[in-house]
């Protein structure tokens, strides 16, 4: 009975979504306020219905209701409760439900926090989000219903959650990522609303800026969590694999990054209007495309866990409607957009244009590399694969170019920067970063790596330039004590994000060029040298986990003669699925990670063991954390709150006069 409540709530949400898609739009077109006013209540109702539906599915997991096929396929009596919760989004149907829930959640936030926006505008925005919701809910109900039952003979036990996903990182990674993906739908909806209404001035940019920034921040954290999870769970010790699914999240991220920057230009200067609209459409379209690529089986990938051509046809149809429709509307309307105003060659606009250009080229090259196997296959060229060499060869130089320009943007002024003195601090920055960058590989010792020198110089270049900008701007406002509170939060967010990128670049350069890595044969009593440490295997045992059996090795790590730490990597075999997973032992540190993973059992009771020292690897994710934090800080900017308050006061005044 209870699963049927969830199913019913899902159908109800679908019906509400149809109303949400139709009524406000009709109200806008026929100029009837009453219909427009349905948008906010409908958005709230839809959120409620989907929350019930989601809650019921989660209850099914917690209560071991194996009569629900999705639960039976993805849970097990032995599965710990926290993984039973995250198992809700562990496979295709449930992750779609999460997607729909988050879309509804963003709809609710738009309904609640759009008081500064004219009613007909928020009605259109919610209507567009309703249309997207209709597509997704129809997809779920007709091809991927999570509430399908196995009755009357339901299994006594479930098939268990994919062991790869039985990990704390996976509890948070998909929701974060979806918050980002789906959050981009708000910027998309604003762009569409302004295209529908034909009001193509800069106001839509002002409204959609905070939404874009927060979606971007979630996307950043989601990607970083995924990369961190891959690092410690997949047992290879890599942090990025250029896998189609990873690329599917990186492409919208690159476009959303470009969008954030071009929105700034559109809002402040009214320029790039047509381009910004296109980016807003592209960012969300590419998120949808990512979903299509992952879910349809068009591309084979290590984590395409729901390959089904029938579903693929449905998603493709949906993509055609959403992307094709929005691009058509764009083509009809955008040709009428005028671009008032000019800017000089050296101005903040031109640097942001440069930023957009490079980011777009990056996104297009990653997209091409990801789709290339498909394109070649489609024209009968057979199966090819595009690997990391291609992506690295394209991505690394483009990043270097992008980062070289990054220092100038914040220092430049809008319209024009006639005054070359603005860039004077960069001369010192350049000298310091080049000198330290060139010296850095020598300080490290070992073979001199020019790649490291360039990478470190670039990271320093950004970090110092950000610091210089910080000191200059804080100086404008007076002493350090009172200033931070007075500087625009958006500015602080930018500093954090730029500084974060510098940290990430430094981490990537160090770990890619200076990882010390060895695959060895080790048995109990064997000792191996690892960087400044000696690693001794002291024990090998078999451990019984809740739903797996593991071979566990105990390693004592010595620094000189003193015991530094004892670690226990495992090789687990999950009972229900028979899958074997590597649980690496990682000792994290600021300057390095020690990484010990068990490979394969060898004859004579020995194991193949993988030992690595990964310098500064955690900086990659620390940088991403700073970027995400920057996004969150910047949306707390006073001007966003002020507008709401002004509106409230205006409302209160109206109420008083009435």
């Amino acid at each position, binding site marked *: 009975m209870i699963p049927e409540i969830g199913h019913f709530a899902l159908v109800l949400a679908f019906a509400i979504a149809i109303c949400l898609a139709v009524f406000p739009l009709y109200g806008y077109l026929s100029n009837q306020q009453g219909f427009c006013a349905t948008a906010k209540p409908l958005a709230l109702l839809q959120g409620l219905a989907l929350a019930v539906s989601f809650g019921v599915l989660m209850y099914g997991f917690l209560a071991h209701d194996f009569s629900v096929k999705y639960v039976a396929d993805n849970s097990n009596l032995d599965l710990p409760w926290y993984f039973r919760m995250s198992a809700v989004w562990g496979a295709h149907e449930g992750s779609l439900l999460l997607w729909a829930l988050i879309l509804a959640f963003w709809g609710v936030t738009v309904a609640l926090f759009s008081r500064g926006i004219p009613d007909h505008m928020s009605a259109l925005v919610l209507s567009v989000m309703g249309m997207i919701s209709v597509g997704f809910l129809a997809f779920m109900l007709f091809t991927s219903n999570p509430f399908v039952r196995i009755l009357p003979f339901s299994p006594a036990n479930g098939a268990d959650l994919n062991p790869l996903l039985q990990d704390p990182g996976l509890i948070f990674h998909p929701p974060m990522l979806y918050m980002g993906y789906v959050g981009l739908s708000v910027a998309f909806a604003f762009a569409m609303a302004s295209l529908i209404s034909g009001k193509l001035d800069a106001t839509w940019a002002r409204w959609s800026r905070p939404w874009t920034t927060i979606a971007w921040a979630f996307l950043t954290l989601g990607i970083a969590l995924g990369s961190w999870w891959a690092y410690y769970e997949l047992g290879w010790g890599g942090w990025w694999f250029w896998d189609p699914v990873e690329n599917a999240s990186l492409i919208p991220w690159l476009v959303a990054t470009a969008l954030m920057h071009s929105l700034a230009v559109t809002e402040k200067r009214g320029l790039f209007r047509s381009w910004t609209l296109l980016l807003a459409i592209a960012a969300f379209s590419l998120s949808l495309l990512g979903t299509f690529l992952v879910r349809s*089986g068009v591309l084979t990938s290590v984590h395409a866990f729901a390959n089904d051509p029938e579903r693929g046809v449905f998603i493709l149809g949906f993509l055609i409607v959403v992307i094709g429709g929005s691009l058509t509307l764009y083509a009809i309307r955008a040709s009428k957009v005028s671009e008032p105003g000019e800017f000089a060659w050296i101005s903040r606009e031109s640097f942001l244009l440069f930023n957009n250009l490079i980011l777009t080229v990056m996104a297009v090259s990653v997209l091409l590399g990801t789709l290339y196997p498909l394109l070649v296959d489609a024209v009968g060229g057979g199966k090819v694969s595009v690997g990391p060499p291609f992506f690295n060869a394209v991505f690394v130089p483009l990043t270097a170019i992008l980062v070289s320009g990054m220092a100038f943007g914040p220092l430049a002024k809008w319209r024009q920067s006639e005054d070359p003195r603005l860039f004077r601090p960069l001369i010192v920055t350049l000298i310091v970063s080049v000198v330290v960058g060139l010296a850095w590989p020598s300080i490290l010792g070992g073979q001199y790596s020019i790649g490291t020198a360039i990478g470190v110089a670039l990271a320093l270049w950004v970090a110092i330039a950000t610091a210089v900008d910080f000191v200059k701007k804080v100086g404008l406002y007076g002493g350090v004590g009172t200033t931070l509170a007075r500087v625009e939060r958006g500015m602080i967010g930018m500093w954090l994000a730029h500084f974060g990128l510098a940290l990430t670049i430094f981490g990537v350069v160090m770990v890619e060029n200076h990882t010390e890595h060895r695959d060895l044969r080790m048995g109990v009593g064997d000792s191996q040298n690892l960087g400044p440490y000696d690693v001794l295997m002291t024990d090998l045992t078999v451990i019984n986990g809740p739903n797996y059996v593991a071979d566990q090795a105990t390693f004592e790590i010595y620094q000189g003669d003193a015991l530094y730490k004892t670690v226990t990597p495992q090789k687990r075999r999950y009972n229900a699925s028979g899958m074997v997973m590597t649980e690496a032992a990682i000792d994290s540190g600021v300057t390095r990670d020690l990484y010990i993973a068990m490979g394969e059992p060898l004859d004579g009771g020995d194991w193949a063991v993988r030992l690595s020292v990964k310098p500064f690897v955690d900086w990659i994710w620390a940088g991403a954390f700073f970027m995400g934090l920057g996004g969150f800080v910047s949306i707390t900017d006073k001007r966003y709150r002020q507008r709401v308050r002004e509106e409230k006061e205006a409302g209160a005044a109206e109420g008083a006069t009435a």
Partner: protein
Amino acid sequence: MNRIMVWLPLAVFAILVGFFFKGLTLDPREQPSALIGQPVPEFQLTDLNTGQPLSREQLPQQPFLLNVWASWCITCQVEHPYLTQLSQQMPVVGLNYKDTETAAKNWLQKLGDPYAVQIFDPTGRLGLDLGVAGAPETFLVDGSGVIHARIQGEVNQRVFERQIQPLLETFQ
């Protein structure tokens, strides 16, 4: 100019949709049926044991089983005794799939090596051409190198009697 340029994104998307649509019909899971009746794809790999180059021409000239396996694959261990028994009856060619040389050799040393030829495919290139979804998979190939059946998962006596034996009889 601008009036034409704004249609460009839509045009690019339309072309992509064409490719995607084609891509859907090329679903990797539909490959097995497409490969049945087709010759084994050409390949240029090495023999795991000898390290010598190996190509399609060096496969047996009589009906044989092409068994995709790897040392990391648990089910491969399960089916290994039965394959060893089968190898008395007909040649079994191994395709060591996405494996390392050391691990594969250790595995064979430990469990015995019934394979007539051992194709070493560490990158999974031939596996991809064959449409292999995972190990183990076994293909029945006739004397002229044409694939007649694909079995996903374990090969045991029941599978042999039901899916392989009837086809083998049609060869004679």
